[in-house]
């Protein structure tokens, strides 16, 4: 077996996994708080990528240096994704707080459909080329045949985001409130936590990580379209379930496992059924270990 090919696949899978992890975090955080799969999460990721593309093109045409474009476009993408996540929660989820789960689920699907077609109508249905925002690092030159500079960027950003997120959840006031809300919503409310605000904050944080993932992957792959959120969303969901939905380290672990398996599967076996593979993976996990790798199995109380 060719070792270099193997390392390429290994790092390819690692990059892929980090992107899935960034999206999966949003799923798992929202699930942790309101026990609901946010169907429209993939769309937030797509909107992040689109905003990044639009802002970066405008800035480039205004003659800004590359590094400023990268930072500003990334920030714009994050801000807008957060705003969309916040608004989405207010429109499609908040009025249904006490409704049956089926209603919320259908409303979330509606939201996903709405956002996809909104971008389709307002922008385009074609694939748009995405500029490579990340420059080639000179110091990384000797290793670039294994891991390209954008991939390095993805990996390091993911690590930074994970660390920040851990700090946010473990050590800040809002993080404490999030953990309390996810344990017991009513008790948290009785103790003076504004549950609605915490839920909004969760959506915002999840959207921010999704936007980061969206911009990074778009600049890595080099093209985007309005449908990109669907498959990415599904795969991130698989990752979240694999790791144990509701658990943050689980989401990262699940995403990495999924990234590697996919990478090796397409590298050594076949690339025709790449997307089918993730689904089959999901079904297999759900049959044998529905609580995921790190998740606790839930006991249903009457």
């Amino acid at each position, binding site marked *: 077996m060719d070792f270099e090919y193997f390392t390429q696949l290994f790092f390819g899978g690692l990059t892929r996994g980090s992107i899935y992890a960034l999206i999966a975090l949003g799923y798992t955080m929202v699930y942790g708080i309101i026990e609901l799969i946010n169907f429209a999460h993939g769309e937030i990721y797509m909107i992040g990528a689109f905003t990044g593309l639009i802002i970066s*093109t405008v800035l480039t045409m205004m003659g800004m240096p590359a590094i400023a474009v990268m930072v500003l476009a990334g920030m714009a993408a994050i801000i807008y994704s957060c705003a969309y996540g916040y608004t989405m929660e207010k429109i499609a989820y908040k009025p249904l707080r006490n409704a049956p789960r089926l209603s919320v689920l259908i409303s979330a699907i509606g939201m996903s459909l709405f*956002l*996809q077609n909104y971008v389709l109508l307002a922008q385009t249905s074609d694939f748009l080329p995405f500029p490579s925002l990340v420059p080639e690092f000179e110091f990384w030159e000797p290793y670039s045949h294994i891991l390209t500079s954008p991939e390095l960027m993805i990996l390091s950003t993911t690590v930074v985001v994970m660390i920040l997120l851990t700090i946010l959840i473990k050590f800040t006031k809002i993080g404490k409130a999030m953990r309390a809300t996810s344990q017991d919503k009513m008790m948290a409310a009785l103790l003076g936590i504004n549950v609605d605000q915490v839920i909004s904050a969760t959506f915002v944080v999840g959207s921010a990580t999704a936007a980061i993932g969206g911009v990074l992957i778009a600049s890595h792959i080099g093209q985007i379209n309005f449908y990109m959120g669907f498959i990415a969303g599904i795969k991130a969901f698989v990752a979240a379930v694999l790791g144990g939905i509701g658990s943050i380290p689980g989401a990262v672990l699940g995403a990495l496992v999924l990234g590697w398996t996919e990478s090796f599967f397409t590298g050594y076996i076949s690339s025709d059924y790449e997307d089918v593979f993730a689904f089959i993976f999901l079904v297999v996990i759900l049959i044998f270990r529905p609580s995921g790798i790190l998740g606790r199995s839930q006991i249903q109380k009457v």
Partner: protein
Amino acid sequence: MTAKQELKKSIIASVWFMFLTFPIMVIKVNTVTHTIDWRWHNMALVGIGSFFLSMLWRYLLKKKEEGGKKEKKAGLSFIQRLLQEKQFALPGIVIISIITILFPHIFSMYQTNIMTSALIFVVLGLGLNIVIGLAGLLVLGYAAFFAVGAYSYALLNLHYGVGFWVALPIGGILAAFFGILLGYPVLRLRGDYLAIVTLGFGEIIRLVLENWNEFSFGPSGIKNIPKPGFLGIEMSMQTTTIYVFYIVVLLVVFTIFVINRLKNSRIGRAWTALKDDEIASQAMGIDKAKTKLRAFALGATWAGMAGVVFASKTTFINPASFTLWESVIILCTVVLGGMGSIAGVIAGALLLILLPEYMRDFGEFRMITFGAVLILMMIFRPGGMIEDVRKTYKFEK
């Protein structure tokens, strides 16, 4: 609340949405020629639109809250009462059957064809209604069962020359088999997992049909599928169209009959009980796994049969006819019409299929409207257009 506060809130909403839609609605970049198209008029539209919509939104939410506080037994709607009245039942059936029998003779072939497609979606909607409306299982890959039916007819016909009437039950049974196959692993899952797994299943079927060229002829599909025959009589184009129309009508009638019988049967009540409270119904001795599997299998059967009819009607099928959009449209018909309500689902399907057909200019806004409809229906009218009336038993002392 004063008018001033209302105005302020609306202005805030309007500014917020203008900000929110700014990059995507206003700026359009052309990455090839490197030009930017600034579409400021869109911003004005969004601003004005969201100003009024936010007022309407808050008004409706307030009304909904007030309505929730009131006693919910305010009474049935006009259509519901009409459906309940026994004295209207017979004349109603007579009128509707006369209209359907005469329909292909009065209207052109084009209209008949559209009506046939709409009726196929009625069957699909009613089938999905078993799974979602009665059993409360959200299935997002329903088009996959539709595909199973269509492909089983097309392939059986291609390889073994199987005719329409033989393929119809086979398609149904095969789809039911797939339903059980899918249902078995996902039975233990909660609603949201189920939605994603079935969505994944739908995509798997579509991707397999697209990629497995030796089996399904890939994206190019299967051509020249024969139309249904009648005792080997040669029929002209027009007669066949009418004939297919009548077959679909019969299928619809049969579906309505079966679902109506199912609804108040032991198994139908078991579904409703499971939908309302799984644990309680299990405690009452309902076998959860078996009951859910039955819902899956029965729901899939109708999709399979509708698929066979669809294949014979269009005489050409390819994977593009069975995408996620089809599943979503069927879901929309059920949600819009009213989950669990037969009349509602029929009305919903006819509305959702016929309306875009006659409003072609509106076509590109179709999916975005569907998305909005799903959200709005869930918030303001979760029961659908024609809400299902549950059979109640009165306890008299």
